[in-house]
């Protein structure tokens, strides 16, 4: 009786949750299936999960080689996400190093101020930032998006928390060898922080890749569009052609999905340290 209770429960529950998780992922399965169908088959009911009439190549061509320069949107997204991520990592790692290992007057004040800044919602400062970007002559440039995305008190906080844990002995040994603070940062601190840098980098990349509001407000020229904006453009052009929209959605999601599946440990860890220690 007891044995049955212990063994059977988890198996039944696992099966139950397996089914639940499948239903949970069904919208994404539907997307993949619709991306490979003809427009007519997308709407047939009951749903034809495996397309009878494969239209994958045609939809693929419409998205990638059609009138809308989806490839260009893609390159724009890659460029912005990569540069923003790199810039955030550098700025936040520098600040994290200063806040964790360097003694200077005002350090406590700077730290408390940064914690307070985390409470300022980006959306509350949208209007003035837009005006400032316009005044700086950066409206409708990728530089505007990178500039707005490279400062983050949240990531600085995460990096600082990690760097506090780095042993001072290691830094002192480097100092005895004659390394200055800049050298220590570059050749000791950064290599030792690789795990947290990877975590922060992936999360920042995902967020930037998916950002819709920033590009929506800061960009005007179609040739500068990122994928989320491009999707909006697609909706306007192909609003009724759902199979093509699903192919585009698939393209928007795939790189992150692959990145996530490879690096799931870092992503999940990164998300959870923010929630538990923060």
């Amino acid at each position: 009786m007891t044995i049955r209770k212990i063994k059977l429960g988890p198996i039944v529950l696992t099966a139950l949750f397996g089914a639940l998780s499948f239903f949970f992922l069904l919208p994404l399965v539907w997307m993949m299936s619709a991306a490979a169908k003809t427009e007519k088959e997308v709407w047939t009911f009951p749903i034809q999960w495996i397309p009878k009439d494969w239209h994958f190549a045609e939809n693929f061509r419409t998205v990638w080689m059609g009138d809308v320069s989806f490839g260009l949107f893609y390159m724009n997204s890659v460029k912005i996400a990569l540069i923003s991520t790199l810039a955030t990592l550098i700025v936040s790692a520098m600040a994290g190093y200063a806040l964790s290992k360097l003694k200077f007057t005002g350090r406590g004040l700077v730290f408390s101020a940064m914690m307070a800044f985390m409470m300022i919602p980006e959306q509350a400062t949208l209007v003035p930032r837009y005006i400032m970007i316009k005044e700086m002559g950066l409206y409708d440039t990728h530089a505007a998006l990178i500039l707005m995305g490279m400062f983050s008190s949240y990531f600085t906080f995460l990096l600082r928390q990690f760097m506090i844990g780095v042993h001072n002995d290691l830094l002192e040994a480097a100092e005895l060898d004659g390394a200055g603070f800049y050298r220590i940062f570059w050749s000791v601190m950064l290599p030792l922080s690789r795990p947290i840098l990877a975590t922060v980098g992936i999360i920042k990349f995902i967020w930037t890749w998916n950002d819709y509001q920033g590009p929506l407000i800061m960009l005007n020229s179609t040739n500068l569009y990122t994928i989320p904006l491009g999707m909006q453009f697609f909706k306007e052009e192909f609003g009724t052609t759902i199979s093509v929209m699903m192919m585009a959605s698939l393209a928007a999601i795939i790189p992150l999905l692959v990145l996530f599946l490879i690096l799931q440990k870092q992503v999940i860890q990164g998300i959870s340290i923010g929630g538990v220690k923060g």
Partner: protein
Amino acid sequence: MSHHATVQKQLAAAEKRTYWTRRRREQLAGWLFIAPEVLGMLVLAVFPLIFSLGLSLTEWNLVGGLSAIKFIGLDNFAELFRDDRFLKALKNNIGFTAGTVPATMLMGVIFAAIIHKKLYFKNYFKVAFFVPYICSTVAVSAVWSALYHPSKGPLNQLLMQLGVSDPPRWLVDTSWSLAAIMVIYIWQLLGYQIIIFMAGMTNIPDELYEAATIDGATGIQQFRRITLPLLGPTTFFLAITSIISSFKVFDMIKFLTNGGPNYSSTVIVYQIYEEGFQHFRMGYASAMSWILFLIIMLVTSLTWITQSRKVHY
């Protein structure tokens, strides 16, 4: 004074000098390392916040140029409370929070407990529920807009098959649009909540559960008496961040409904966008921004005050 003592004194002085040079260098390095971040914060967060407070006291249509700025005092704030669209947005936002936050948190904690304690292939479940969270909101919105299609969409086809002759028209239905978006929002956020709750649960020592098992406590009793109380800090964190992010919802609204039909799915950030970036009423949009900022400050401090006594650290 002996020669020896003089040398020692000189050595000590030199050491002191290097110590102070080092201190000075560290000061300089500290400020150089922190400078970019501080500068960025000042220019992109603090200054805009003050700037927007100033703007909120003006009437300014961006198209008219800087010379068209007119100081009008608190008129914008007075207008806000007569503006049906803004009041609708405020009401919708509160409804959105009341609907999504308890639902995701409750489901999140229950799912997390079951996955954490009872299931095989834990890692699979973590990943499966988390996938929607990393997907582009715009892309998943596109998917759901097809699923929600009033006549041809799979959801309504299914409902009609089940005998519902007149199913809701979801995104184009004034009484359903917001609820339909809330479903997508919950679907996308659930995995995040599960991950955070699970991270909190791994910090609860196993001995507590072992002792409870020996005392004959059932799984549900253990969940109520051990897991939930010890998750205090996690719950507190999630409550604040979820309420705040529910007040910032925008992407889905913009992509799916543009706040419609008839403002049934509009929210504060959408109204800021519409007034500021479509009608170019910068002063009025700034006044809305400040209301949003105040709401978020209020939520943060209220949650902080009410919870700080109850949370077990």
